[in-house]
């Protein structure tokens, strides 16, 4: 195969995206578990670990720019590198949401939550399912899967709206719990945004495969 070294480097970059995706996916899942347990030590660890995510993001960006500068990528290769630049940013932001939930855990403290966590873990599970499949679609250049995954973001939004309504209803009864209600709403909002970022990743998969800039989150 011609351009053996370049092709190998592109493959390496895709592997790095998978590795970054795995890091943030793991962090987001752990953050919601730690929230349920009010685990301050885990929260501190998540906040620290976000620095590794940031370092990997910069390394991937550096590799992308180096390949753009030295390898003159064209057509599909160029779209792939442009997509990697965007996807790495989206993943880094999802990492920030995990770190954000870590900070919320520290604010909540050891006191019991205002209500047991039910819908937030469901939201997290749905986002992680979408994220893992979006990265799979990226590696396999699967445009149909990217469209289908993006459509599932409605489930995340529905759960968020339900949580919002529940919390507002709770506050009407117990307005003195405003701060603690607000923390839970932030955590849910972080997950909702992680879902939106995953949709953005799907848009980049579509661009990579078809060359079309398509907005998938139009609701």
């Amino acid at each position, binding site marked *: 195969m*011609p*351009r*053996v*070294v*370049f092709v190998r480097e592109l493959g390496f970059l895709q592997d790095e995206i998978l590795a970054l995706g795995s890091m943030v996916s793991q962090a987001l899942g752990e953050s919601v578990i730690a929230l349920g347990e009010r685990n301050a030590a885990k929260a501190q660890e998540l906040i620290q670990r976000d620095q590794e995510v940031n370092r990997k993001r910069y390394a991937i960006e550096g590799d992308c*720019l*180096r390949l753009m*500068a*030295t*390898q*003159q990528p064209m057509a599909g290769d160029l779209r792939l590198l442009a997509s990697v630049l965007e996807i790495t940013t989206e993943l880094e932001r999802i990492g920030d949401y995990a770190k954000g939930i870590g900070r919320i855990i520290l604010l909540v403290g050891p006191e019991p939550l205002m209500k047991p966590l039910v819908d937030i873990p469901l939201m997290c599970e749905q986002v992680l399912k979408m994220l893992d499949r979006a990265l799979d679609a990226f590696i396999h250049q699967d445009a149909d899967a990217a469209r289908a995954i993006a459509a599932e973001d409605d489930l995340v939004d529905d759960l968020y709206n339900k949580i919002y309504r529940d919390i507002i209803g709770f506050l009407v009864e117990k307005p003195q719990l405003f701060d603690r209600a607000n923390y839970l709403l932030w955590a849910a909002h972080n997950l909702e945004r992680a879902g939106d970022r995953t949709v953005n990743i799907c848009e980049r998969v579509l661009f990579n495969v078809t060359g079309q800039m398509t907005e998938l989150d139009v609701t």
Partner: protein
Amino acid sequence: MTITLERPMVRRKESPAPQANGGQYAIETNGLNIYYGAFHAVRNVEMKVARRKITAMIGPSGCGKSTVLRCFNRMNDLIPSARIEGEVLFQGENIYADYVDSVEVRRRIGMVFQKANPFPKSIYDNVAWGARINGFKGNVDNMVERSLRGAALWDEVKDKLQQSALGLSGGQQQRLCIARAIAVEPEIILMDEPASALDPIATLRIEDLMQELAKDYTIIVVTHNMQQAARVSDFTAFFSVDEQRTGHMVEFGPTDQIFTNPSDQRTEDYITGRFG
């Protein structure tokens, strides 16, 4: 393929003993100045070429990059008015020292030129010839096959080894010249615009081959094609000319750095097309 890097230079009897340390670099220049008669062609080149890496030399026409390349195996000796000052160290030894045999230098530091120049002989003889006149004692058939495989040409020519080399395409002829160069087991291969006469696909094949060869050899390539230098090399030297038309090296560093964040504004201007 096994290449012995630490062979001492062939010397005349009165030469000093070889250095214990063969030099950290494949080629190292100290205060290299090159003149054609009274014309100061290149000034003060200080360059350290890493072993088993690809080093590219780029720059505008007349900047002296080919002149410097030809100094690395004393090809400039063949130009009567050419002379040099300073040192060119190969494995720690100055190849311009009185005791050094220039023919041996050219055997150890091979060269591939811009235009493929096969001999008007068979494909087989093109590869076998250089090794034979250098007193090769082993199995010539094996050596020819090994060299042609090393140049990624074997599969295309194995059934027509006795046919004329002139019947090959331009890209194949250039790879034959590379096979001929590696047949004598050099340590360094100098390439002067090796792909500039080839179409884009043949060019990419030569570039892939260079990267394969760099596992065993040090490669120094002069190219007008800046993108080629970016694609293929590990290190890049940028040369320019001053108002007296004397060439000089502006910047030398890892290729990634030269093409993403050069240190010198003149390099930035050249690689972004603002100059030259």
